[in-house]
């Protein structure tokens, strides 16, 4: 829907330029003042979103020898292939951007003081139509009108640029969030919106950092589809090397939560060295107590009782040599 609104916005800009302009009037040239009513509609647009008809006064040159708006470096839409006759004028519209749009316009003058017409723009989202009805209500200073028109176009285009930047910023924020949180599920869910390989590449780049691996490790057991193993698979990374590096850093940093969650061999060695044979109360204030509870939970699950088995003593400490900081 946001894309549709952007398209509508561009369309309105193009139309504003079209209606407010005339072909390069000479200095002090007297023009025609028209009161133009426009009504826009779009295929498939919900009834509640219909845009009300608008009536504006615009100043044009007497003779239309070009499309109602000449090519303008400020305008995104280019008016081409203008064909004019006393009773009928037609032209084509080309609007660059994403998505690019093309269109046609036609005005039929039923009298020197009245016309009806339409403009149609096609895009992947559908066709937008603007029906037009003009009534000549007097004369005007075409030179002054041109100046006002150019100021209006500049202002409208500045607003459009601001809006587009805001939309791009918002999209960037939304698309970067799963990378910040290393949330593979969200990354996949947003793939249609955050198109292109760059976001996944960023996710996989970040996977190489210890901070990201910690986040994933935290979810490894509680949410396996969104944990370290799933991320390694999605990124087709070298899981063995990555886990080896992660566990070495975790052991060095004494990051026991990571060791407990993602480094079974190191956890086993740590538990044997620091938990085995110890009572819960003897670990009061000990940095290993939380880790030992996690280990106790694992052993309880094996059906052997919660207390870390008292056994391995010196052997365990030897196996930790080289893993733990001294």
């Amino acid at each position: 829907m946001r894309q549709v609104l952007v398209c509508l916005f561009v369309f309105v800009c193009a139309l504003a330029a079209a209606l407010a302009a005339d072909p390069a009037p000479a200095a002090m040239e007297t023009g025609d003042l028209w009161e133009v009513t426009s009504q826009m509609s779009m295929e498939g647009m919900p009834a509640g979103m219909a845009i009300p008809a608008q009536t504006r006064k615009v100043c044009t040159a007497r003779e239309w020898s070009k499309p109602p708006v000449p090519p303008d470096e400020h305008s995104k839409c280019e008016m081409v292939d203008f064909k004019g006759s006393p009773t009928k004028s037609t032209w084509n519209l080309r609007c660059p951007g994403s998505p690019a749009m093309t269109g046609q316009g036609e005005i039929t003058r039923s009298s020197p003081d009245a016309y009806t017409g339409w403009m149609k723009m096609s895009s992947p989202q559908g066709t937008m139509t603007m029906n037009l009805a003009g009534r000549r209500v007097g004369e005007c200073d075409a030179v002054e009108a041109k100046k006002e028109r150019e100021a209006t176009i500049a202002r409208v285009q500045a607003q459009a640029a601001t809006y587009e930047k805001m939309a791009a910023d918002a999209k960037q924020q939304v698309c970067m969030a799963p990378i910040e949180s290393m949330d593979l599920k969200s990354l996949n869910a947003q793939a249609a919106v955050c198109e292109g390989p760059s976001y996944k590449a960023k996710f996989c780049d970040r996977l190489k950092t210890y901070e990201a691996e910690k986040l994933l490790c935290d979810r490894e057991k509680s949410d396996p589809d969104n944990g370290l193993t799933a991320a390694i698979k999605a990124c087709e990374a070298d899981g063995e090397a990555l886990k080896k590096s992660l566990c070495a850093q975790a052991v060095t940093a004494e990051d026991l939560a990571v060791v407990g969650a993602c480094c079974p061999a190191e956890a086993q060695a740590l538990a044997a060295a620091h938990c085995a044979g110890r009572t819960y109360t003897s670990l009061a204030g000990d940095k290993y107590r939380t880790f030992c509870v996690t280990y106790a939970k694992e052993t309880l699950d094996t059906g052997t009782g919660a207390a870390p088995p008292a056994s391995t003593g010196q052997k365990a400490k030897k196996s930790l040599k080289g893993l733990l900081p001294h």
Partner: protein
Amino acid sequence: MIVSAVLAAAALAAPPPSNRFPAAAASYLVAIDGRVVWEKAAERPRPPASLTKLMTALVLLESKWDPAPPVRVSARAAAATGSRAGLRARETISASQLLEAMLVASANDACIALAEHAAGSASAFVLRMNARAREMGLSATSFANPCGHDDPMQRSSARDLRVLAEAAMAHPEIARVVALRETRLTTAGGRTLTLKTGNVLLGSVQGVHGVKSGYTPGAGKCLVAAAERNGTKVLVVLLDAKDRWWTAAALVEAAFDEARAKR
């Protein structure tokens, strides 16, 4: 009618409790947000040791509880065996301080002093405890004394103790006292006694906020522990658990893992 039908359907949909941790204890039960998820021999009567004092506290609090009046410690109370606060015969101390001594340090001298104060004698108080157990539908529960000493008629089950613990914790005063890690008593004579909690999970396992531990040779190591994290409530009952603290800490963590996985 519709609400009942929905609740009945929900109850039918919930899987029955499993014995996921057979080595945890002779009898145990773990409830998450009021639903029992794991249990073993949870209906089997066993000696409850000092978990009994949850009923003692409940009956006291439900019987025109007045924390202020000084209670005179009898010779019988002062001679109580097992865990004690160290009260002396003929000493006086407020009922509220005795309640703290009974629930924080499982003090049997405070327990008997309170029972005698409330009912005239420990045996008269036990009648009230048994009546309350019947009212609550605790079919596996009976008491022979107010403090939990071993006796063939002193028994309860993990299921009954869960109901009892939840009823006790619904009383703000009990919930407050069982969360204390330490209490300081001052007798009318000015003697001060500092007592530490027997529940070592308090302050060591995140979210644990009560309730009571117990031990007798007949009961083994027992515990009821309540914990709450981010609105999820866990209750663990252990009867005769060899590695009571490891097991309880591990069960609390496993229960929160389970709750998180089910969300």
